């Protein structure tokens, strides 16, 4: 969370965030969308999307814009701002590939000591949920504000 991050635009009652990933070669509009999961009250899916020309979007795995740490830091900012406004919500995060899940796990592992006092983080594997543990592979993650 101490990393540099991109400026954010907030829309749709803090359920949609936009920012631009910028490098010497290109600019990529990225959207972070929180969407309520039907029939799972208070549970939202986080989608990170690249917006291409003509508003076409992709779930492209790697944008190759040489700024992955900054992009991920910005996504974390989006998540925290969303949870500020929806404190009872849990956010479901799953990568679109095993390598993306490993990246998410590495980021969560790195940030875990800094956020564990105010965030509850759970790992899900084979439909079992447990409090996040370091060095443990997961298919997906659920994050919510810690309840006092």
């Amino acid at each position: 969370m101490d990393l540099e991050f991109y400026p954010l635009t907030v829309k749709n009652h803090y359920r949609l965030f936009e920012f631009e990933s910028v490098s010497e070669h290109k600019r990529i509009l990225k959207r972070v969308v929180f969407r309520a999961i039907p029939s799972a009250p208070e549970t939202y899916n986080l989608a990170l999307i690249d917006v291409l020309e003509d508003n076409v979007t992709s779930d492209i795995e790697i944008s190759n814009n040489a700024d992955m740490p900054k992009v991920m830091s910005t996504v974390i900012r989006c998540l925290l701002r969303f949870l500020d406004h929806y404190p009872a919500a849990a956010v479901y995060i799953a990568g679109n590939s095993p390598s993306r899940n490993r990246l998410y796990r590495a980021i969560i592992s790195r940030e875990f000591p800094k956020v564990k006092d105010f965030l509850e983080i759970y790992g899900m594997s084979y439909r079992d949920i447990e409090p996040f543990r370091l060095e443990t592979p997961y298919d997906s993650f659920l994050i919510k504000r810690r309840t006092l």
Partner: protein
Amino acid sequence: MSTTLKKSERRKPREVVYYPTTEACVQAKLELAMKSLEGVDLSPIFGPGYERFTSKTPPHSPSSLTEKE
């Protein structure tokens, strides 16, 4: 004659999925999330009494799929 491919050459390139709109992409990801959560007990997160997740949307619950961006 045999040729040995480098590891990077053997790797199958990942297919990138394109969607016509953000909404279509979000909807696709939402459906994946619902499929992944099907039958999962979320009570460790929300406490006892939280019903096991089912992809069936109760008729009285507001559909979030029509949210405007």
